[in-house]
């Protein structure tokens, strides 16, 4: 798994590429927690390149979302491929996470004032 990070206005975007699995999830979880502890309050996970996720990857995302929830920030997921979206549904994440089909919709929701995308 590879991630790339960038900041767009207030939004901190983490792009996930590859498999978020047992081998890669702990470092990813630690990174999310550190970003929130470091003061990021608008976190976007762009997942269109994430072809596979297992429960350890789901746990990493859940830990990040809960941490962000506890500081009243925004934690948004976008671009899930259909097979991964199916897993998110199965585990009930579509009920508790903020999920958008595309990056553009996610950014629009996170930056209602229409800042640069």
């Amino acid at each position: 798994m590879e991630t790339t990070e960038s900041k767009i206005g207030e939004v901190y975007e983490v792009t996930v590429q590859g498999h978020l699995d047992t081998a890669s999830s702990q470092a990813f979880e630690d990174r999310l927690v550190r970003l929130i502890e470091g003061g990021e309050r608008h976190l976007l996970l762009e997942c269109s390149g994430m072809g596979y996720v297992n429960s350890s990857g789901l746990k990493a995302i859940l830990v990040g979302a809960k941490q962000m929830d506890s500081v009243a920030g925004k934690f948004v997921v976008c671009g899930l491929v259909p097979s991964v979206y199916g897993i998110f549904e199965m585990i009930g994440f579509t009920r508790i996470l903020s999920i958008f089909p595309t990056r553009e919709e996610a950014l629009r929701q996170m930056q209602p004032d229409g800042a640069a995308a």
Partner: protein
Amino acid sequence: MHDGSITIRIGAAVHEIERLNRCVRQFGELHEVPGRTLYAVNLALDELVSNVILYGYDNPHGEEITVKVLVEGDHLHATVEDGGREFDPHTAPPVDLDAPLAKRQVGGLGIHLVRSLMDGMEYKRSDSKNVLTLRKKIR
């Protein structure tokens, strides 16, 4: 689909999971198992084998896990056998899918996925080994 079986032995190490999934995928394609069935079986096996590697041993180094996949008629059976500490996944508490984010437990997701992805799961403890058999109707 074509009937057949494969037995795969892997070391109890996280990097071995990818090799297991590759072997299962190749076997499945050779036996014309549909992609979505293979995806579900591979994810379920990933969950179970990950659990064994992470929690089954004091030290997993040198330990081995055996996975057998069998295609028979319109069903696929997958068996995971390990010499780790006794664990019957049926005893895992269910995940409360209705809990709000702040109250969602972060554990137990893997077993929930296995239960949801498969049509049946049987556990037995035999010769100091965990033997877990999954059943999935091929569709």
